């Protein structure tokens, strides 16, 4: 019954669990392939004719079987070697999801080098830091844009010796002494192989001695504070975690996934590389960022992973489009969505549902759910995960009610993703599931969640101090998140541990918790709560331009800019209702009731990563915002009704400018548990 039955989960069974996992991993990878180059060879043998990679390019899905991939990687790897890549060297991987870039990682690993995938869209300064810190010797990049970026930062990365690019366009006139076309490096490798056929054997021998404990990859965590840190993960970390993940969700070589999330992110690394290699399934790379929706529909992935914002966007798109549909159609849609809300999840969870409802649901499947899934390209989805942040319960329920097996996952780079997972049939909106196979979990005295697992990272590169701060000598890792383990064994995350604070009256203040509650309203895109060591809670709010804009269009509200829409009194009224609802919810939770929102304002500009207000993964940088909008925070607490501010902004084309606005601040009443409420004491 229990999905865990096959693999031991370890909450509370610490030392024993560790041993078992070693045994488990050996059995899951029968021939004992413990590194990706070795797994590649196995796949080429076992799944030789199965498609391993696809890329939509030149209008069709170019495909490579495992044995072709093996040859491609071998040729490129040998080419890299002839360029002088050595064991221990770091190889930066910069660009969008392309098969060749994934191959480059394994090609580097085959030579004992360590790939370092980097966020391709990070600004030059950020990238220069990472590359310099990692001391990369080689870089494999996508195109001219990345080549230019690397050349511009050459001084900060003195270790960089060679750059290999995938797309030659525009690079014809560049000095090619240290710059190489991927194809020509590969051709060089092929030529060498032809000349000396024994090279193939030598190449295989080169990594046959590799151990699972070797460093497989280095991923830089973007981090909400300070400089990014290089998380070193070993082959064991990744291979064992990946196999555990595969077993947990019964993934095999028939899966299809879409590789569209940044390659530097652990999620993509595990889903599109580690799990793909261990299970032998097919990874599909979209044609471009503009065509992802089409590409996803064409491929119809069976295993799908996305951060909540992807699902949010999908839902928003569905709703916005349905607004434009004819009356009958909309009524039908609403009706069947009602049916789905009532019985969809029950059917998915295998609970008992009356025959009439089942028939209705089947009709709905034909008329609405099926077509919707078809449009989103999720028709064939066996398992889907959302992680990275909390997903709105409404959104989550919506997708599940359509019959999609969408689940939540809690993970970290340092854990090779998996910490907790929601097992099939045990889905609760407010928890992130039970410990993943082989993962032990505990809550520290300060409320921080800690775990220990085979996926636990080796250490931070060149940062022993940080390693020591995060990982205890006996292998427990601080997640940095505060949470509780519920009675049913599920983990519930409240907030970042360091962000959980106290109001001056001593009540617990979990800003993220409040923010997420706010963000579950489609009209609210972002929220930042303040209150630590203050007498009450105040909130900044960013409205969602798509949702509110669509509302404005329907209600004939004219607006020229985000700023204007944000200041609209009707919008304020709408947001006020949302805030009030959140307060009502908070009032019903004994631990949180003291931290209800007393004042809020709608920010005059959208928080933007270009201005440093968000991280590249769209997470709020709280302290930065607190500094930048100090006058507004002051206004939140000094009782003033409006405040005039001037803010520096960076436009899309890189120009700097400033916007000015008078921002209105609203007071909110406080609720008590139950129905009644008392006026906010001033």
């Amino acid at each position: 019954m229990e999905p865990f039955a096959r693999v031991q989960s370890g909450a509370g069974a610490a030392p024993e669990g560790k041993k078992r996992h070693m045994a488990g991993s050996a059995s899951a990878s029968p021939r004992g392939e413990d590194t990706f180059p070795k797994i590649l060879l196995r796949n080429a043998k076992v799944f030789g004719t199965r498609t391993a990679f696809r890329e939509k390019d030149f209008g069709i899905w170019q495909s490579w079987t495992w044995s072709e991939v093996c040859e491609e990687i071998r040729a490129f790897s040998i080419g890299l070697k002839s360029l002088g890549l050595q064991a221990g060297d770091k190889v930066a991987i910069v660009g969008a999801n392309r098969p060749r870039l994934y191959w480059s990682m394994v090609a580097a690993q085959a030579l004992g080098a360590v790939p370092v995938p980097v966020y391709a869209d990070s600004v030059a300064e950020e990238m220069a830091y990472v590359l310099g810190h990692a001391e990369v010797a080689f870089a494999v990049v996508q195109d001219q844009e990345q080549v230019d970026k690397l050349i511009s930062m050459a001084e900060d990365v003195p270790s960089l010796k060679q750059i290999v690019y995938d797309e030659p366009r525009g690079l014809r006139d560049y000095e090619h002494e240290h710059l190489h076309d991927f194809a020509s490096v590969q051709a060089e490798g092929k030529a060498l192989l032809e000349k000396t056929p024994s090279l193939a054997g030598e190449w295989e021998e080169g990594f046959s001695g590799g151990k699972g404990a070797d460093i497989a990859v280095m991923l830089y965590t973007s981090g909400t504070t300070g400089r990014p840190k290089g998380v070193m993960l070993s082959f064991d970390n990744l291979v064992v975690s990946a196999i555990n993940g595969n077993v947990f969700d019964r993934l095999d070589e028939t899966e299809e996934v879409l590789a569209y999330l940044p390659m530097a992110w652990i999620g993509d690394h595990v889903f599109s590389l580690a799990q793909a290699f261990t299970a032998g399934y097919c990874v599909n790379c979209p044609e471009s960022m503009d065509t992802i929706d089409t590409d996803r529909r064409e491929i119809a992935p069976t295993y799908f992973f996305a951060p909540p914002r992807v699902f949010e966007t999908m839902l928003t798109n569905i709703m916005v489009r349905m607004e434009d549909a004819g009356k009958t159609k909309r009524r039908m849609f609403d009706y069947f969505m009602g049916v789905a809300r009532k019985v969809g999840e029950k059917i998915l969870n295998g609970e008992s549902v009356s025959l009439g409802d089942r028939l209705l649901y089947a009709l709905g499947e034909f008329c609405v759910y099926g077509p919707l899934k078809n449009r989103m390209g999720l028709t064939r989805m066996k398992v889907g995960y959302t992680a990275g942040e909390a997903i709105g319960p409404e959104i989550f329920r919506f997708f599940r009610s359509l019959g999609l097996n969408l689940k939540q996952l809690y993970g970290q780079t340092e854990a090779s993703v998996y910490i907790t997972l929601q097992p099939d049939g045990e889905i609760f909106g407010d928890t992130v599931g039970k410990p993943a196979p082989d993962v032990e979990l505990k809550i520290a005295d300060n409320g921080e969640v800690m775990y220990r697992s085979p996926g636990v990272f080796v250490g931070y590169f060149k940062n022993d101090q940080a390693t020591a701060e995060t990982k205890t000598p006996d292998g427990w890792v601080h997640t940095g998140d505060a949470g509780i383990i519920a009675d049913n064994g599920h983990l519930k995350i409240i907030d970042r541990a360091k962000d959980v604070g106290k109001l001056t009256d001593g009540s617990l203040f979990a800003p993220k918790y409040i923010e997420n509650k706010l963000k579950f309203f489609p009209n609210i895109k972002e929220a930042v709560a303040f209150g630590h060591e203050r007498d009450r809670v105040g909130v900044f709010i960013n409205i969602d331009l798509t949702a509110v804009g669509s509302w404005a269009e329907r209600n004939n509200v004219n607006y020229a800019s985000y700023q204007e829409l944000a200041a609209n009194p009707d919008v304020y009224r709408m947001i006020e209702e949302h805030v009030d609802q959140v307060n009502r919810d908070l009032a019903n939770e004994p631990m949180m009731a003291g931290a209800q929102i007393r004042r809020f304002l709608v920010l005059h500009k959208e928080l933007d990563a270009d201005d440093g207000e968000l991280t590249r993964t769209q997470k709020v940088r709280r302290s930065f915002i607190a500094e930048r909008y100090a006058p507004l925070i002051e206004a939140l607490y000094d009782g003033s009704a409006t405040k005039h501010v001037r803010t520096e902004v960076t436009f899309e084309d890189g120009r700097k400018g400033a916007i000015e606005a008078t921002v209105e601040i609203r007071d909110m009443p406080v609720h008590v548990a139950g129905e009644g409420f008392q006026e906010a004491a001033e």
Partner: protein
Amino acid sequence: MNAFALDTTTAPSDETVKAERELLLRVDNVSLSFGGVKAITNISFDIQKGEIRAIIGPNGAGKTSMLNVINGFYHPQEGTITWQGQVRRKMKPYEAASQGIARTFQNVALFKGMTTLDNIMSGRSLKMHRNFFWQMLWRGPAEKEEIEHRRKVEDIIDFLEIQAIRKTPVGRLSYGLQKRVELGRALAMEPDLLLLDEPMAGMNLEEKEDMSRFILDVNQEFGTTIALIEHDMGVVMDLSDRVVVLDYGKKIADGPPEEVQANQDVIDAYLGVSH
């Protein structure tokens, strides 16, 4: 050692290359009139292989007529045109096309009933030869040929970054994208000389920048000689190697952009000083 500190883009020196360039097309004393109205009067200039040649001038200066003469749509009453060393007599537009002259139009002249893909495929017409019989059977040679050319067309789609609109009927595209598709269609002909009639008319700044990049890339990647008409002087000065200036159907200047820009006649023409 810092391998990348110094070597940025060092293109071969412009001067050395241009001196060696050979003549692609020469226009000698060409005059054209419509029922007594002179559109072009006694114009001579040349286009060298591999260069970007701009033809500029105020409205009604005869620029488009000049392009029409070059690709055989109009037949000049006087003068000769020497194309790749051969003096050309009267020729039909489709002959010009088969000799390697492609063009785009001032007001986008795409085939409205077709998709982006088909429009660009239509540029391959001259290079496809399977006859009616094979086309009818499709399986076999005709299909093979179609696929062969589809591959080339996909290169162009990739080059122009129009993957997302591959199968969209062109009528639904924005003006800027239509212009891009039209450029793609002309490129599909693999021309020796590409005539662009106001490639950036009616575009916003971003689209203009994109288009400029594509034009430069075409010139550099494929070595295609380009003759273009353009109103935006900034664009002309940035893109072109040499500029010829027309006014009222007469040539008033010819030379490198800087030189032309400083020419008093050109300044007068643009300021509308009467002659």
